[in-house]
């Protein structure tokens, strides 16, 4: 693909070629290195699909079974590779079906370009067949969007779309193209976008702020790092590790920061947030300097803001100036790409160990282990637990798999117990909490990392939101491993009902179909486990399979996830039961 990319750009550089707008779109995609796109055809985008047909040796289009699936697959691809994911759809219902994926990508800062067809220019605004104002609809959930109505706009806008999607704090971009612009011809000439004058993607690091941060860290007795996805997006994993090791600072992750640092690293103390680890939550209110790196103090992380880290000086490293002081007031703000700012910070830090402070995390871990973890991963009761399934997957994959989780209790178990050695390995819908994310996202992740095992962990509820993507897996022979942790309930909501609504299980009981039979209908190898004695072998069989594999594990129906910070409570009120 690399050579192709160069060829394409070279010929275009020499002389502009006269081609249709639809063909121009393909050349733009190829020039941006996007040789894999997800989508679903329809009337208003047919000229582009016609070109996809002609260019199928250079550009692969994966037909998902729903446009939402196309966006999540593009997101999965983007999250595992760090490149821009691409999804396309027709106008009207095709376009509106992209909205959930756009919103998900927007809140989780995922680089994605969505291309939608639109009715022909002279019909705009006339309530034409399948006309919808997707620009208006998608505005709040895109980093940028644009409607192309003339073919000659295509190269510049597509270049800008990719540049904006991937630069700075990444995000989704939607380009809507009227049908006439796809048919019309233009003199095609492609130049990648390097700059948009009104847009400053990466603030320049300020030396003084970095010095102030170093001074605070050097004088701290109980410094504490919380890192988020900014570390992954900024490719700052090595820098983070060096800072943590040199200054001896315990470091915890947000759900999207997971896998930026080896989960077995001695200074990696676990997860913060509603279902995060006990110590990392509790000790947030005991540290003296809180160093937030590439995270945005989401309410699921902070709980009640009035009682969050009030005793601590706060240093906030972020690429997005709008995040500074948005939720938590900072003492020192360090703007910039984490890779750059941490590189500048490192030489200013004193070597340190903070052993007593680190021991407090260990002590809290022991408390959590006895009260929760032990029973989660080595249960003695009869029913199977989600935690033990994760543990078996860790063992069978040697902590090397990409784990894609859906939303609910199983997501929390996946993120709490999955082990990672490699970055970009935890793919989950963090900010939006989109049920139905995992199955299509796993398809994209697998296609982005063919050399790795990709395991989707899904609940019986979320599975049925995008279950039709089994068809995509079957048609493309995508060897993803699908694990459904079936508790016959919308487990997470049921847990809240149990704890906060006197166990009134309003619409959270699920009568489920035979999932194994459904997988078999798509010719996907599958098995069901109901008893502990069969679990290990089943997980091993799944991991050893060269093809896609579906594993249903019937787990305890009314288990809960702990620790838990009840919604709106303080991190100090983290409950173990």
């Amino acid at each position, binding site marked *: 693909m690399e050579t192709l990319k160069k060829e394409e750009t070279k010929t275009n550089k020499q002389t502009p070629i006269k081609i249709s707008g639809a063909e121009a779109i393909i050349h733009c995609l190829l020039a941006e290195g996007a040789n894999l796109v997800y989508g679903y055809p329809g009337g208003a985008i047919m000229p582009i699909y016609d070109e996809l047909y002609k260019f199928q040796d250079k550009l692969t289009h994966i037909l998902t079974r729903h446009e939402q699936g196309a966006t999540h697959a593009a997101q999965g691809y983007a999250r595992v590779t760090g490149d821009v994911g691409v999804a396309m759809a027709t106008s009207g219902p095709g376009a509106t079906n992209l909205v959930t994926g756009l919103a998900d990508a927007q809140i989780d800062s995922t680089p994605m370009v969505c291309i939608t067809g639109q009715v022909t220019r002279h019909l705009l605004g006339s309530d034409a067949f399948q006309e919808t104002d997707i*620009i*208006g609809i998608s*505005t*709040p959930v895109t*980093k*940028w*969007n*644009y409607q192309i109505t003339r073919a000659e706009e295509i190269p510049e806008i597509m270049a800008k779309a990719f540049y*904006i999607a991937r630069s700075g704090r990444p995000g989704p971009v939607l380009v809507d193209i009227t049908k006439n612009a796809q048919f019309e011809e233009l003199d095609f000439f492609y130049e990648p976008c390097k700059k*948009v*004058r*009104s*847009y*400053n993607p990466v*603030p*320049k*690091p*300020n030396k003084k*702020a970095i010095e102030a941060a170093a001074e605070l860290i050097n004088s701290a007795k109980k410094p504490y790092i919380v890192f988020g996805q900014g570390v992954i997006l900024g490719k700052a994993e090595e820098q983070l590790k060096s800072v943590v090791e040199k200054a001896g600072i315990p470091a915890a992750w947000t759900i999207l920061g997971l896998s930026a640092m080896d989960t077995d690293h001695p200074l990696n103390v676990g997860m913060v947030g509603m279902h995060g680890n006990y110590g990392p939550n509790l000790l947030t209110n005991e540290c003296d300097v809180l160093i937030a790196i590439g995270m945005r103090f989401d309410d699921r992380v902070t709980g009640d803001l009035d009682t969050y880290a009030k005793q601590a000086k706060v240093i906030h490293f972020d690429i*997005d*100036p*709008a995040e*500074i*002081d*948005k939720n938590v007031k900072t003492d020192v703000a360090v*703007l910039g790409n984490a890779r750059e700012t941490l590189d500048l910070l490192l030489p200013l830090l004193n070597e340190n160990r903070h052993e007593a402070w680190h021991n407090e995390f260990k002590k809290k871990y022991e408390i959590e282990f006895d009260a929760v973890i032990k029973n989660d991963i080595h249960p003695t009761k009869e029913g199977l637990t989600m935690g033990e399934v994760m543990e078996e997957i860790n063992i069978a994959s040697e902590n090397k798999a990409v784990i894609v989780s859906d939303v609910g209790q199983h997501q929390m178990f996946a993120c709490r117990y999955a082990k990672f050695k490699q970055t970009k390995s935890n793919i989950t819908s963090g900010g939006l909490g989109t049920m139905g994310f995992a199955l299509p996202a796993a398809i994209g992740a697998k296609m982005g990392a063919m050399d790795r095992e990709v395991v989707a962990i899904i609940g019986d509820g979320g599975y049925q939101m995008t279950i039709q993507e089994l068809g995509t897996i079957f048609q493309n022979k995508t060897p993803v491993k699908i694990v459904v942790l079936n508790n016959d309930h919308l487990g997470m909501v049921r847990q809240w009902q149990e704890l906060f609504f006197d166990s009134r299980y309003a619409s959270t009981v699920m009568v489920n179909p035979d999932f194994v039979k459904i997988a078999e209908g798509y010719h996907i190898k599958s098995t069901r486990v109901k008893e502990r004695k069969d679990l290990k072998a089943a997980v091993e069989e799944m991991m050893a399979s060269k093809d896609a594999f579906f594993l249903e594990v019937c787990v305890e129906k009314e288990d809960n996830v702990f620790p838990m910070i009840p919604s709106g409570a303080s991190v100090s009120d983290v409950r173990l039961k």
Partner: protein
Amino acid sequence: MEKEWFTISVYSENNVGLLNRISGIFLKRHINIESLNVSKSEIEGVSKFTIVVFTTPEWTRKIVGQIEKQIEVIKAFYHTDEETIYQESALFKIASDLLFDERQIQNIIKESNSQIVTVSRDFFVLAKSGRKEEIDEMHDLLEPYGIMQFVRSGRIAVSKTEMPISSILNGYYDYSK
């Protein structure tokens, strides 16, 4: 924190969708736009939104941060009333016979520093520029005589301090400040 009047000045590329993006930011936070004006600015090809809100300094700062984040926005500033020179204008359409029959109306015109823009057989139009209170006051004075139509513009404002748009566009601006 106390609520205050703030004038938000947004310098941007001239883009059709941007108004939608900007108003969405206010919508999300349930902050009412008290007045909005869009015009060209001192720099060729650069538009200027002047938005007036009544809210706390903290909310204003956060909103301006979100506005500035939009791709087509070059820079956004916010100022209190003391930090700006600002004006609004209003038009009053009034029946022509009043101009000749009501002596008091002529006094109001004189004292309010307003101009007669046009006079026809049926009506005349008064234009008044000034602060909102001045316009409100004039409205109250004229109201008893009957106002056929009234309209007031959004606020326009310039800041006392510099808004260094050119240096931003030329890449000389230090964002870290």
